[in-house]
């Protein structure tokens, strides 16, 4: 992740619109049901598609017979892998192989062929008429078992050059980083604790399933409407997978019912395009919930070894970690992020980490909010907690003593610029939650968390209307209220009311390339681009005023929505409001449009500290989260309530991951819990009001100091909840999720050990 800061001046005070909390522009549409999501698109003559998926975890596809399905009345097209582009390499080949298998079903739910029919019911019935002959292969779904030398091989020869010799075929990428001498560091420690941790795969749990409407004509021109976090990426991938030129596919992003990283990838759009090309009709494709669980991209599962040495006073002397990350049947488990994030909060002289990317017979993992970091924090922060317990030290004081700050050489290499970890710890320490008395059977957990922030290709256009209002076009789908924050930043720069800016997520034919809404980048990068586009617009407005007044361009300034002479020497003219300039723009030089295109590289990383109280029923093992406080550095909160929403959302998802969410595979390698009834995300009544504290340590790389906030909030909760539960039950919980059966079983072991000890 780039950490270079461009030299820019950062404004941190005297805001008029930034820092306020106006209504979101999509609010009315969403509460009235008028908002159009992925499945809300219709076209004349539209067909409905359905995908046939493998019921087996691992099987060779011997034969696909679609004759019965194709003959069903109403079926207009069938496609298999033969209907997609050939000769792909690298990630495009991986994506195609994942969304339409070639010769082997690699996981339960792997797509094998698809149909389009005149109704969704006919398409569904046609799927039942597809006959696929399989030759069963042995399967593996557990990361540790998959690394064993006798494990079934998912795809030989997939490993890249980073993987050292002697590892199994399923280890496909390797990461190693660190500095100092860990052996010397551990030798110097008063106490060294080493432990092993496991987390299960979880799903982002977005409420809206993947959905699209696609048209691809025989002339190669296509249109796609879909729910996605990155329609420019959809455009590029679709063009490659169906074999046409990128610009011939126009993609429009719908409103999005949640993504959290899971909609940064492409699953169904190329299938709908291929069916449309064959049927010569528009094709709609909507995943069921069960398809979402089985065949979209959950996060990686993890198996981790952590070792930390500490002096009696709390100073850390060395830390090392091994992260084994399971990412499904393709390379990509985010083990380098896991490795980089785990020790990032700590200023360590001696640190070392290794990551393994391991393939199994599971769906191809996708990004999930700070991919890879929450698991690392769970393992590392659990050991830190255990060290504090053993040495009788305060968990916040120990973290403060070892905290990374400006100038620290990060565990993953670069030197931190201005960061706010210490400020979050100080705020947590001062928060009444930290010192509140604890109820019976309750533990309090503390954890820090870290995530990067990303710039990425960004393009923004700002067109002025004749009445002085503003049409702002951005290319990053709004997944967290970004239309509101973009409107605020535009209004701030132009000196006009927020309501005078309409923000649109423009389609791929309207703007230059915009990277996906990921990496907590939108408020940072699209925000920076919006501010720069506004400044470009202001320059053009000032030029018109200068021409009108007959003075030099440089002698015009912009104050509160008006052009004004920049000083006494510039002349004596009445302020010229934006609306007066735009009213005559047709005859003073034509339309006024500002724009900005760049790859901003001043993204600032973000840290958080969470405090949580967990009460455990000792007779049933059931955990209630009774109090939760998120403290996080936002750099600058453009729209504070949406920043709080991001803080709370990350905490809520982290609580689910810690307590009840998990991918459960049977011995047959099939996913057991493919609906929300059995994949247990927290419901509203499971959560307390999640309190938030916004810390603002400006990012020197953004004009207003913004840091990305969307992802860091999910990094601490796994560890914080685990530390709280471990405190409540008196057993170190090293495996997630901490379901009631899991906790009760640990309590039983503890009771038996105590009894055995007493008897012995």
């Amino acid at each position, binding site marked *: 992740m780039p950490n270079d800061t461009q030299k820019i001046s950062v404004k941190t005070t005297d805001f008029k619109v930034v820092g306020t909390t106006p209504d979101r522009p999509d609010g009315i549409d969403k509460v009235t049901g008028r908002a159009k999501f992925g499945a809300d698109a219709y076209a004349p003559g539209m067909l409905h598609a359905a995908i046939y998926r493998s019921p087996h975890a691992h099987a060779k596809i011997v034969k696909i017979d679609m004759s019965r399905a194709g003959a069903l009345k109403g079926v207009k097209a069938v496609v298999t892998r033969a209907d997609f582009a050939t000769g792909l390499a690298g990630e495009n080949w991986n994506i195609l192989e994942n969304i339409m298998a070639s010769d082997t079903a690699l996981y339960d739910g792997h797509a094998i062929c698809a149909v389009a029919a005149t109704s969704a019911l006919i398409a569904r019935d046609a799927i039942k008429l597809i006959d696929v002959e399989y030759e069963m292969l042995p399967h593996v779904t557990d990361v540790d078992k998959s690394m064993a030398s006798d494990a079934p091989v998912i795809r030989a020869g997939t490993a890249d050059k980073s993987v050292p010799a002697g590892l199994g075929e399923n280890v496909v990428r390797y990461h190693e980083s660190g500095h100092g001498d860990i052996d010397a560091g551990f030798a110097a420690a008063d106490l060294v604790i080493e432990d092993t941790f496991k987390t299960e795969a979880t799903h982002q749990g977005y409420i809206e399933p993947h959905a699209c409407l696609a048209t691809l004509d025989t002339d190669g021109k296509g249109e796609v409407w879909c729910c996605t976090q990155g329609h420019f990426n959809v455009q590029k991938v679709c063009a490659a997978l169906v074999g046409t030129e990128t610009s011939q596919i126009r993609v429009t992003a719908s409103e999005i019912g949640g993504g959290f990283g899971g909609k940064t990838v492409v699953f169904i759009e190329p299938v709908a395009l291929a069916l449309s090309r064959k049927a010569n009709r528009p094709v709609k494709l909507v995943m069921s919930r069960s398809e979402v669980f089985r065949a979209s991209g959950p996060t990686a599962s993890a198996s981790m070894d952590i070792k930390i040495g500490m002096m009696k006073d709390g100073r850390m002397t060395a830390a090392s970690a091994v992260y084994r990350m399971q990412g499904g049947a393709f390379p990509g488990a985010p083990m380098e992020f896991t490795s980089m994030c785990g020790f990032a909060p700590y200023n360590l002289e001696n640190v070392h980490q290794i990551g393994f990317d391991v393939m199994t017979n599971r769906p191809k993992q996708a990004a999930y909010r700070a991919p890879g970091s929450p698991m690392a924090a769970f393992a590392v922060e659990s050991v830190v907690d255990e060290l504090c317990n053993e040495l009788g030290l305060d968990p916040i004081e120990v973290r403060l003593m070892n905290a990374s700050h400006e100038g620290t050489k990060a565990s993953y290499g670069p030197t931190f610029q201005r960061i706010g970890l210490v400020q979050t710890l100080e705020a947590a320490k001062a928060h009444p939650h930290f010192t509140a008395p604890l109820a019976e059977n309750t533990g309090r957990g503390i954890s820090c968390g870290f995530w990067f922030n990303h710039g990425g290709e960004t393009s923004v256009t700002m067109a002025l209307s004749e009445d002085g209002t503003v049409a702002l076009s951005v290319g990053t789908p709004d997944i967290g209220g970004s239309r509101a924050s973009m409107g605020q930043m535009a209004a701030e720069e132009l000196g006009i009311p927020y309501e005078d800016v309409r923000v649109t997520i423009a389609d791929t034919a309207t703007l230059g390339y915009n990277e996906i809404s990921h990496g907590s980048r939108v408020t940072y990068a699209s925000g920076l681009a919006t501010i720069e586009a506004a400044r470009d617009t202001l320059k053009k407005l000032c030029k018109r005023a200068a021409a009108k007044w007959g003075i030099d361009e440089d002698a015009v300034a912009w104050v509160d929505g008006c052009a004004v002479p920049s000083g006494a020497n510039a002349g004596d003219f009445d302020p010229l409001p934006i609306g007066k300039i735009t009213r005559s723009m047709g005859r003073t030089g034509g339309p006024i449009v500002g724009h900005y295109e760049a790859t901003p590289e001043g993204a600032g990383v973000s840290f958080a500290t969470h405090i949580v109280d967990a009460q455990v029923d000792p007779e*049933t093992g059931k955990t209630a989260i009774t109090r939760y406080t998120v403290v996080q550095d936002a750099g600058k909160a453009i729209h504070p309530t949406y920043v709080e929403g991001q803080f709370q959302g990350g905490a809520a998802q982290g609580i689910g991951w810690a307590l*009840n969410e998990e991918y459960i595979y049977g011995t047959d390698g099939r996913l057991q819990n493919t609906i929300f*009834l059995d994949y247990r995300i927290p*419901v509203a*009544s499971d959560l307390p009001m999640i309190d938030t504290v916004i810390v603002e340590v400006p990012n020197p790389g953004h004009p207003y100091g913004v840091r990305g906030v969307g992802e860091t909030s999910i990094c601490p909760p796994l560890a914080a909840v685990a530390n709280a539960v471990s405190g409540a039950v008196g057993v170190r919980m090293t495996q997630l999720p901490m379901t*009631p*059966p899991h906790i*009760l*079983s640990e309590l*039983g072991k503890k009771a038996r050990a105590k009894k055995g000890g007493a008897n012995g």
Partner: protein
Amino acid sequence: MQYHTPDSFEDAVAIANAATGTTRFLAGGTDVLVQLRADIVTPDDLIDIKHIAGTHDITHNADGSWTIGVAVTGAEMSEHPTLKNDWPGLVEAMDLVGSTQIQGRATLVGNLCNGSPAADSVPAMIAINASIDITNATDTGTATRQVAAADIHTGPGKTSLTKGDVISAVNIPAVQPNSGDAYLRFIPRTEMDIAVVGVAVNLTLEGDTITAAKVVLGAVAPSYVTVTDAANALIGSTLDEAALDALATAASAACNPIDDKRGTIEFRTQVSGVLAKRAAVIAYARAKGANT
């Protein structure tokens, strides 16, 4: 698929008997419609019984007993001004099913006929000796027989109902003086879940002493388990620690659960005892007149 809306049980019985393929009855539809959408069952005949007169009524009979229509929803039971005074355990069990929206549709009979061994209202019905009216054809027309609620469910997805059987009412007995019922279930979350363990307890007291008891478990065996040993552990006691421990031991011993995605054998067995104790304490307090 044929969708039928009979306006009498006689017609419903005739349609059901004439049907040759897969038949489903539709009251609230909170299971049937979900199964339809999930492509688990596509019935040939779907018989909507909500249009039959009286199916939405909760009737308090002259002898103190209650008759609950087959289309009465959970919400209607919870909002009834006096039903929960008599049978708080039954009402709270039904109220645990689903969400607010589901409560506006879901029915006792649907909960029973879905055939799950983990339904919340079924242990509660069995514990209070509810009976079910079943109407079917006879040589001369139709007749209605009464069957104990305990005798309907026979195994996962299975009931004792036969072709043409249409449930026409649920009968709840009159509450006895100094009695109380209670239902508790275990789920890992706070709502929107299926019982991992369910326990219904119904007690009658004389003074402080329990004179009659019924303990019914759900979700811990292929069907609901009426635990006689658990009842015997309570009868004659004042719900002292020893009685509660004996109750827990008997409840756990009666479990014959499975390991699955919702819970383990060990967990279900242990928690059955815990919930039995907790439900007994609530039922006892209610029998003593507590308004809990």
